[in-house]
């Protein structure tokens, strides 16, 4: 009885909470059975009512409009809701004519007719930025929204101190249109209900924690949009704490919800178009919402993953976006691919079960393990074989090359399985070192002993070895002097092994060290990813993407009352005076400026010095390639005594072990005309420089 009373009350609230919709059509009485929200599919043999057609596309709007809903099935009744719940044959307003949409509205509609199965529910979000910036200015729940989010800290609304700043108001509105938006729509109980809401129970993991919701993509440029029903969970480790009012999400596409895959170029035209899942991440460490940290620039993680991809490796792609939950602005987020088996199948070919994927269970989210390498797909057998071989020592070339499925001379042996992709390991670690990453792939917050925050993928047929993925790179770009080269006391067991430990083991091998030098030459030198101008331009490109959007983030999350405020340096302005008020764009610009002034211009040179001190780089410069009118004309070297060797057949002038490649020519005067493709090294005594390659 009590439940029925509650449901009646709920219906009253539902009817009253149809914000932004001028038309009012009373909904019929509701029964407990129909209020369960299940869309009756009935007999699969029975035809479905034709789906509801919306007269307007979803998206962002600046003026009210009339919305018409139609179904091609004659005599069908269309019902719709605006509170996120699913319309059913008995729940929702009966559509009786055009609906005037005057403000931000999430509208779900389905068509019903006796004797036929109901149509699929269609969901459209209509977002009005002018309306969004006025949401809950006093921080109270929007009408119809819950007072509490279970045990989670509650935070609603847009801060009028930010919204009404005349200096930035227009830009804030433009910022809401500057990035694409995602809109999650669901019955509020699935999101915020104390017992079953994903947001109210942020620590819950696994399939049982997943709730069905609608996801829409609202493009910034009026381009292609999409809507798909999906499963939603909270993602993250430390950031799952209920103190955190702004959680990140993991989205799953399953047959259970409708489409088994999302088919849309979420990461742009050159990315893949088919997804089993992806993440909607948001800054957590060094954020305004969780940490109350004025060092938030919101690009650290994305930028590090960009660097890995720019080096020519597979990496988790991502793009910035805004997010709305049932029409309420939820802040700045970014999409992120998950480097798991489906990612591997998409990017490397084959089926999902053809891959092993390992990552670290940090222990923040399970009771069973703490900072242990686990398999998310396949198993850890190959990882264990890699560990066992590396633990025996890699000083000898036979052992070192065997890890790569190679003969002792470095040539590929098709009969051996590859366990490690050495170039990928080196480049991955260069991103780690350059960023001064404190939390991956081993954590400074766990003794520098335990692994954390990496993914590794390997095909089970061993055609290539484990490849690593930058993940959760938030603890980066901090101290320009940071040295993460170690060596650290880590990898004492296979469960605590990591790419950092593999780097340390490999560093015992002279061929590996020269390979490091080759990769540093390629990526730190002229035209390389970490060349100061290139890395600065890449960083600036990301910051420019969100420069206006951070105003909206400031309005939404710049004033969270309870934050995890630990270890944060004083918040000071350019004159060294304390800054008060909501965290905002001024803080963002100060931190971006600090990085542009103190970190980016010097970091590449500093890390090169750290690598040199670790014995990873030779003390012999590589030949300089001299071009004239874009054509390679000669090689030169500052040491007159250095001999320069080159090849034009793609082989290395130096053989494994240090001998001169018989195919190499010693430079004696000008380069031959076939030097359009060229590999060259300098040699002095027994020492070889790093390799330079053209093109």
């Amino acid at each position, binding site marked *: 009885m009590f439940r029925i009373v509650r449901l009646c*009350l709920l219906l009253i*609230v539902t009817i009253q909470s149809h914000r932004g919709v001028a038309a009012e059509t009373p909904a019929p009485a509701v029964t407990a059975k129909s209020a369960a929200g299940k869309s009756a599919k009935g007999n699969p043999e029975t035809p479905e009512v034709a789906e509801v057609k919306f007269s307007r596309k979803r998206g962002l709007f600046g003026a009210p409009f009339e919305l018409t809903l139609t179904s091609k099935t004659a005599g069908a009744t269309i019902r719709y809701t605006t509170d996120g719940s699913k319309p059913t044959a008995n729940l929702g307003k009966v559509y009786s004519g055009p609906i005037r949409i005057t403000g931000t509205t999430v509208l779900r509609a389905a068509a019903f007719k006796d004797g036929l199965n109901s149509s699929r529910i269609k969901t459209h979000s209509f977002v009005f930025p002018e309306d969004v910036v006025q949401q809950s200015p*006093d921080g*109270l*729940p*929007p009408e*119809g*929204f*819950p*007072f*509490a989010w279970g045990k989670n*800290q*509650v935070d609603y609304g847009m801060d009028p101190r930010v919204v009404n700043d005349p200096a930035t108001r227009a830009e804030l509105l433009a910022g809401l249109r500057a990035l694409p938006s995602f809109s999650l729509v669901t019955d*509020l109980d699935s999101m915020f209900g*104390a017992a079953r809401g994903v947001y109210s129970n*942020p*620590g*819950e*993991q*696994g399939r049982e924690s997943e709730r069905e919701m609608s996801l829409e993509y609202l493009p910034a440029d009026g381009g292609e949009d999409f809507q798909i029903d999906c499963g939603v969970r909270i993602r993250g480790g*430390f950031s*799952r704490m*209920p*103190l955190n009012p702004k959680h990140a999400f993991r989205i799953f596409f399953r047959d259970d919800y409708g489409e088994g895959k999302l088919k849309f170029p979420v990461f742009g035209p050159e990315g893949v178009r088919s997804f089993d899942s992806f993440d909607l991440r948001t800054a957590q460490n060094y954020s305004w919402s969780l940490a109350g940290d004025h060092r938030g620039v919101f690009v650290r993680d994305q930028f590090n993953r960009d660097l890995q991809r720019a080096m020519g490796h597979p990496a988790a792609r991502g793009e910035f976006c805004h997010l709305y939950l049932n029409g309420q602005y939820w802040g700045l987020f970014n999409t992120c691919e998950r480097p798991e088996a489906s990612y591997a199948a998409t990017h490397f070919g084959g089926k999902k079960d053809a891959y092993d994927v390992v990552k670290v269970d940090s*222990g*923040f989210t*399970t*009771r069973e393990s*703490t900072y242990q390498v686990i398999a998310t797909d396949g198993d850890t057998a190959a990882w264990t074989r890699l560990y066992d071989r590396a633990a025996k020592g890699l000083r000898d070339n036979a052992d070192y090359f065997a890890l790569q499925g190679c003969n002792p001379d470095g040539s590929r042996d098709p009969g051996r399985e590859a366990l490690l992709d050495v170039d990928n390991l080196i480049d991955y670690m260069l991103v780690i070192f350059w960023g001064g990453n404190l939390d991956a792939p081993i954590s*400074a*917050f766990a*003794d*520098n*002993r335990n692994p954390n925050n990496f993914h590794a993928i390997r095909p089970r047929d061993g055609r290539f070895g484990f490849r690593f993925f930058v993940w959760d790179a938030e603890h980066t770009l901090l101290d*320009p*002097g*940071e*040295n*993460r080269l*170690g*060596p*650290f*006391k880590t990898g004492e067991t296979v469960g605590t092994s990591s790419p950092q430990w593999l780097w340390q083991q490999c560093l015992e091998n002279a061929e590996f060290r020269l390979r490091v030098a080759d990769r540093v030459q390629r990526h730190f030198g002229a035209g390389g990813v970490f060349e100061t101008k290139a890395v600065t331009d890449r960083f600036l490109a990301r910051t420019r993407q969100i420069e206006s959007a951070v105003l909206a983030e400031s309005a939404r999350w710049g004033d969270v*009352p*309870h934050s995890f405020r*630990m*270890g944060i340096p004083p918040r000071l302005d350019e004159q060294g005076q304390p800054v008060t008020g909501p965290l905002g764009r001024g803080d963002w610009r100060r931190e971006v400026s600090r990085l542009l002034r103190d970190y980016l211009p010097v970091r590449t*040179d*500093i890390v090169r*010095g*750290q690598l*040199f*001190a*670790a*014995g990873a780089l*030779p*003390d*012999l410069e590589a030949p300089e390639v001299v071009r004239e009118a874009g054509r390679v004309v000669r090689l030169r070297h500052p040491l007159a005594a250095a001999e320069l060797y080159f090849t034009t057949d793609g082989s290395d002038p130096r053989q494994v072990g240090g001998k001169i490649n018989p195919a190499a020519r010693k430079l004696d005067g000008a380069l031959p005309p076939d030097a359009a493709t060229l590999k060259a090294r300098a040699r002095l*005594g*027994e020492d070889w420089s790093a390799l330079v390659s053209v093109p």
Partner: protein
Amino acid sequence: MNHYRPCSPRCVALAVLALLPGVIGEAAEPPVSFDQRRAELLKEFDANHDGRLDDGEREKMRLTRQQARRSRGAGYTLPAEFLAKYDASKDGEMQPAEWKVAWDAETKILLETYDADKDGILGKAEKAAMLADVGKGKITGVPAFFAGRMAQDQSKSEPEYLEASQALLKFDADGDGRASAEELARIRASRAEKR
């Protein structure tokens, strides 16, 4: 279904340690340029004084520096009193199992002492009383270390951040947990009255 464990005791202890300057992690290095660093290393390892480090000299440099850095252990130092009490393996470091023993033992005593209402957690006032005793010097040494950690540990305290939303629930006249127009109006009226 897996369940959230906000943070292991060791995580809490290390996270707090990590944020104390000079306690954890690599000692901060000044931002030294490549040329500066090479010049310093040449002074130390250029055995034949030819102005460059050949392969042999660099290998000696690598092994010497590797040993030096490895000998720095986990990168933080704990008071001898701490290690004497909980470093069961006597290896000079706190292993995960040792952290757990230390956390369990020390926080049990603190909880018994300061959990005035005996609800099994330290509330805001109880934490304040504990930290006041640290300030007065009534708690020192290892217990003071854990009192600090315990005060920061939010996994076993009443969530202060819920006070605001709990207060609003008093206005939830229909008990549905959601804000109706009438309830919001009453909250705003109440706020205006208090102002």
